[in-house]
């Protein structure tokens, strides 16, 4: 006996650990969302290039597009253009699209569209391109007053900084101060961001600190026309350090996406003029699981392959019902062995709960009660005829079918569409319920039969309610390993020896003295 108990304990521990382990792996490692309501941002970015084509000669438009090895997953990318050849080439961490055409006339419009999401990109840090860059650069030659002003600025920067990081930060802050005479001289009246960046770059070059320009797009749901925002970055030997050229703040905010880096303009047009690029961002939310299925095709993460989501859609729907049956069974187990409610048969309430799916709860209970009551009266009439079991059951079943048909007809005439759902209400379940209830009635009396019937309805309703909580259905369908935990609990219940709740009432007489 003891060995058996130990055996059981080990088995339960194993099952629960396995269930929790697999689920935790799915949630924390694979990142599968815990609720269905979880949504993810999906960004659709349009870059529209407009220019006026020269009347003669070939046209070649080159534009930077984001490199795809960043911390996002591209779901779709398209180049929309009429009569243009498209080619994309990579160069030094940038990607550039080239549209070319033999000839064109008037205003030309070209589109680039990227649909991307930040989720499911795996571990961004590891995915980032093996960071590389130079950590030394030659000083940019300067002359005269500029050189003196730069050097004058440099010495306090040196004093106020500890390393490359703070050095750059401090330099940007100094240049940002419009009251400084030296800064005024260096800027020469042009206080634009790009000019500031240029000055910062040349000052840092004196200290042999390399600096690179990065052009970013802001991922914001606000509908505004934006132009690429300039950021500066420097390589410290291990990572890229990003700086805001206005404030000197370090670190790239998470809503920025790098479009390209370097000093070249976003778009260059040969054979055209007055080119302009405008960006439009569109943010939509998408169900996290759907998104996962979409990204599945675009990334190496195939974590949904071996889940129930890998099944055909119609089969999935069946499984969403089937996988909840253990929950219903668990309800019955608890109600019978812990609470002590009496039900008809063992799993009849689960079948009734499944039947409630089609009729809705309130209507289902009304229907169940009505048909069972009518069936019982028929059954008690048949009792007088002293029929054998099988013919009697057949008569009851036929009667139930006729009853259901009549209820459907009436409710349809009355305009209650709900009544039509009855047609699929499992009548065999009803017949067996009537039969068993009437046997109980004869053997144990009406009071007991009523008690059992009410217990069955309660158990069935409870099971139905639990089996139809969408969040629970989603959770168990997505993390089926939870069922192992349930099995563990059921096994433990198999050796539960305590009182049932109703027994406390039943034996109460023993305590009165």
């Amino acid at each position, binding site marked *: 006996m003891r060995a058996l108990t130990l055996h059981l304990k080990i088995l339960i521990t194993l099952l629960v650990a396995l269930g929790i382990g697999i689920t935790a792996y799915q949630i924390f490692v694979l990142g599968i969302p815990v609720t269905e309501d979880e949504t993810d941002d999906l960004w659709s970015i349009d870059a529209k290039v407009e220019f006026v084509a020269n009347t003669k000669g070939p046209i070649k438009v080159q534009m930077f597009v984001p490199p795809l090895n960043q911390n996002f997953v591209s779901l779709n990318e398209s180049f929309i253009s009429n009569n243009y050849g498209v080619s994309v080439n990579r160069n030094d961490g940038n990607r550039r699209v080239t549209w070319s055409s033999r000839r064109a006339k008037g205003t030309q419009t070209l589109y680039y569209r990227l649909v991307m999401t930040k989720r499911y990109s795996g571990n961004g840090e590891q995915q980032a391109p093996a960071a590389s860059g130079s950590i030394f650069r030659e000083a940019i030659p300067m002359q005269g007053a500029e050189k003196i002003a730069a050097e004058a600025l440099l010495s306090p920067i040196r004093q106020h900084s500890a390393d490359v990081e703070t050095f750059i930060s401090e330099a940007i802050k100094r240049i940002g101060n419009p009251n400084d005479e030296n800064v005024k001289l260096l800027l020469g009246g042009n206080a634009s961001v790009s000019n500031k960046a240029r000055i910062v770059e040349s000052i840092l070059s004196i200290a042999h600190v390399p600096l690179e320009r990065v052009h970013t797009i802001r991922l914001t749901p606000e509908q505004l026309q934006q132009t690429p925002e300039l950021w500066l970055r420097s390589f410290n030997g291990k990572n890229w350090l990003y700086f805001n050229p206005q404030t000197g703040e370090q670190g790239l905010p998470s809503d920025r996406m790098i479009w390209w880096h370097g000093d070249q303009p976003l778009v260059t047009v040969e054979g055209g003029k007055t080119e302009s690029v405008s960006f439009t961002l569109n943010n939509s939310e998408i169900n996290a699981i759907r998104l996962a299925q979409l990204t599945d095709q675009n990334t190496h993460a195939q974590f949904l392959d071996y889940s129930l989501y890998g099944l055909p859609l119609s089969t999935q729907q069946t499984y969403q019902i089937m996988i909840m049956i253990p929950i219903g069974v668990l309800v019955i187990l608890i109600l019978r062995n812990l609470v002590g409610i009496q039900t008809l048969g063992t799993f009849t309430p689960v079948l009734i709960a499944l039947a409630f799916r089609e009729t809705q709860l309130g209507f289902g209970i009304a229907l169940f009660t009505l048909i069972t009551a009518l069936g019982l009266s028929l059954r008690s009439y048949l009792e007088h005829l002293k029929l*054998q079991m099988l013919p009697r059951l057949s008569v009851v079943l036929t009667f139930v079918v006729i009853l259901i048909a009549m209820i459907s007809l009436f409710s349809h005439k009355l305009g209650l569409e709900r009544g039509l759902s009855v047609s699929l209400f499992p009548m065999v379940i009803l017949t067996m319920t009537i039969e068993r209830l009437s046997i109980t009635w004869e*053997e*144990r009396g009406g009071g*007991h039969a009523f008690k059992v019937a009410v217990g069955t309805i309660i158990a069935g309703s409870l099971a139905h309610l639990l089996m139809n909580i969408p969040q629970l259905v989603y959770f168990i369908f997505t993390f089926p390993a939870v069922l192992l935990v349930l099995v563990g609990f059921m096994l433990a219940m198999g050796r539960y020896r305590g*009182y*049932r709740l109703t027994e406390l009432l039943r034996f109460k007489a*023993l305590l009165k003295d």
Partner: protein
Amino acid sequence: MFGLIKTWKALKAKGIMGINQRNADYVLKYNKRSLYPIVDDKIITKLRAIEAGIQVPQMYGIIETEKDIDRLREIIDGHNDFVIKPAQGAGGDGIMVIADRFEGRYKTISGRIIRHDEIEHQISSILTGLYSLGGHRDRALIEYRVTPDPIFKSISYEGVPDIRIIVLQGYPVMAMLRLPTRQSSGKANLHQGAIGVGVDLATGITLHGTWLNSKISKHPDTTNAVDGVQLPDWNGFMTLAASCYELCGLGYIGVDMVLDKEQGPLILELNARPGLNIQIANDSGLTWRTQRVEAHLQELEQAGTQETPAERVRFTQQRFGHVQPRN
């Protein structure tokens, strides 16, 4: 909630056995599934008992097929009263008790006059499985009608009172007298409204009773006191019950017996899942007693000996008998 916990603890302290504990610790542990047919089928029980020399109501005949029904007259020939039972019936269903013959017809115990073909229909219903557990085909058993000892006249209503003794591994641990009432329509089933009266294991004197889960001391129909009645031949009952372990091999059973006016204690049937109301009737918990027996069995096992039914009866009578009556 707090009250429930208190009740729980009080019941535990009293050693009251719950259904879950009965199933897990006794029924599943001591009753081998393969032996169930012996107790579920009254015919097998009876044949086994006859083989072992244990007193049972005399069997007149068995009807197995529809064709056999023709043999009914032959079987009941020479018997004025008899009982027809389904072999695998539950809860006393489908039992027909014929008390007498009357002008070529039959008279049931309640005084109704029925024709011969009505009896045949009843047997036919039994054969189709109308009364059997799970609706399987069944056999009909025709046997001696027990006439209850007159001692029960004052404390029972119709029917035959029976004595239920719970037997663990051959040790009778608790006993109860079951008295039919008007509400139970002559049946001795507690959940149908019969009275259960606890019996002192040593003396065979009745204790207080239980009726529908509450304690009572008088029979609701005859208003006579049910306690303090000395059951005749009590040691005979105890030994009979104890020997049922060897008969069926099941370790935890309820033995149902009757006291016939002429033949004395007879075994009616065995039950592999005896109810728990016997605890209310005896105002005592089963767990406490079964654990004493289990401890005793362990001692015996270590000593490498076994006890005879008579020794087992003596053991439990000494340990659990001589209950002080409550005021």
